[in-house]
């Protein structure tokens, strides 16, 4: 195996000049080293995005609460905070494990092992992308979040909602509690949102030009006690940040799946067997795939856990 000779070279010459040429000073091939440096630069890109998210979040008086925003589950379930994204995390972690197994099989030149484990990795990646597609569809279609509109708000005061006759006798809420603005023409099962027939001012709510029902409430604490207000849209930046950052990660997963497919087919046809370098191409795509998993650890942390 080429890696063994590289290692011997490295060990016998470790004390002499490693940088005189003729041998790889880092004991890895050019391709693998450059994959590391590509991933380093990609890490900076993602870090830039996530830091931008943090900065904007810090600059806002309120921010959508992730346990409230991400609480739907396929099959019409609601109020299951973080369950679905935890499932997505496990899918990606599992595909990372199958990738490790593919690389290990490559090291011992086991063609069938490589192909089978890479196939499982591709399945994991495709499953993750499907989950993300469902998550995005729910947010876009059912919850009306877009890159410029964010209906997830947080109360910055305590208060009591007005009833349909305009009296402050509805349910109460406390500071920091979350709400989702619904559209008047969209049915949400238990809602009695049908008595609004278009944008306008109603006794218990104000329906804006986008069709969002902004319920009216009477403030019960803070400096605006007694004032009637209506719910406002959440911070605008949230939608754009969410779709761009998870979209950029999803794009990495997607291109990873494409490259995994190509390399699996190459492995199957015996291309890497001929090279006799311990399936190094599988190792390189493995590095990329683990990096995608690594980025998800931080996306998961920043968007869902904090």
């Amino acid at each position, binding site marked *: 195996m080429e*890696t*063994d000779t590289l*290692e011997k070279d*490295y060990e016998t010459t470790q004390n002499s000049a490693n940088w005189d040429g003729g041998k790889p*000073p*880092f*004991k*890895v091939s050019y391709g693998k*080293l450059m994959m*590391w*440096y590509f*991933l*380093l630069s990609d*890490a*900076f890109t993602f*870090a*830039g995005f996530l*830091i*931008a998210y*943090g*900065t*904007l*979040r*810090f*600059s*806002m*008086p309120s921010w959508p*609460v992730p*346990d409230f925003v991400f609480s739907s589950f396929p099959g019409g379930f609601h109020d299951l*905070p*973080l369950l679905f994204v*935890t499932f997505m*995390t*496990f899918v990606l*972690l*599992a595909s*990372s*494990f199958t*990738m*490790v*197994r593919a690389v*290990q099989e490559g*090291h*011992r030149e086991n063609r069938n092992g490589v192909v089978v484990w890479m196939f499982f990795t591709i399945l994991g990646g495709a499953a993750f992308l499907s989950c993300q597609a469902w998550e995005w569809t729910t947010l876009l279609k059912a919850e009306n979040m877009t890159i410029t509109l964010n209906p997830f708000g947080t109360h910055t005061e305590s208060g009591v909602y007005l009833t349909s006759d305009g009296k402050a006798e509805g349910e109460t809420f406390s500071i920091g509690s979350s709400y989702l603005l619904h559209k008047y023409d969209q049915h949400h099962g238990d809602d009695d949102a049908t008595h609004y027939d278009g944008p306008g001012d109603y006794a218990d709510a104000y329906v804006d030009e986008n069709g969002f029902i902004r319920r009216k409430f009477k403030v019960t604490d803070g400096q605006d006690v007694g004032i009637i207000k209506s719910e406002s849209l959440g911070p605008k930046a949230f939608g754009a940040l969410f779709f761009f950052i998870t979209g950029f990660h999803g794009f990495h997963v997607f291109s990873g799946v494409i490259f995994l497919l190509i390399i699996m087919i190459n492995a199957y046809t015996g291309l890497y067997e001929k090279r006799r370098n311990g399936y190094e191409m599988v190792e390189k795509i*493995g*590095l990329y795939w*683990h*990096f995608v*998993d*690594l980025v998800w*650890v*931080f996306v*998961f*942390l920043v968007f*869902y*856990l*904090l």
Partner: protein
Amino acid sequence: MAHISYEESKTIATKTIIVLGVITIVEVLFALLGKGYLIDGFHIHLGIIGIVMIMLSAYKAYLIVYEFMHMKYEVPSLVKTVLLPTLLLIWALIAFMWEGNDWYKRRAHIDGKNAEQVQPVVPQGDLMLKDEENTITF
């Protein structure tokens, strides 16, 4: 990877994935517990949740980079060229959070400034100003 046998590396990979899974479950449960979803009325301070989460995630990152990506078995100089530049991000993180917090603190001030209006001065007498009145003093 030549130092450890195939069987050994298989065991390491299995152990690592189990640890990663367990940490993920702990993180989610801790987030839900801290925000009062599991026990009614029980909350943990957000700062503490944040620190615990960041530490657990950093450990997950370490496991992925060192075990799955085999950084543990690379030459030290290669490890340094890849990992040392990421330390710059620590300062980026502190600096930008600081900045974001400052924007938040200035919000009321900026809103006040935006609402300010200049009182229009109605000119009286002759419209020509004398030289002294025309100079601006700071």
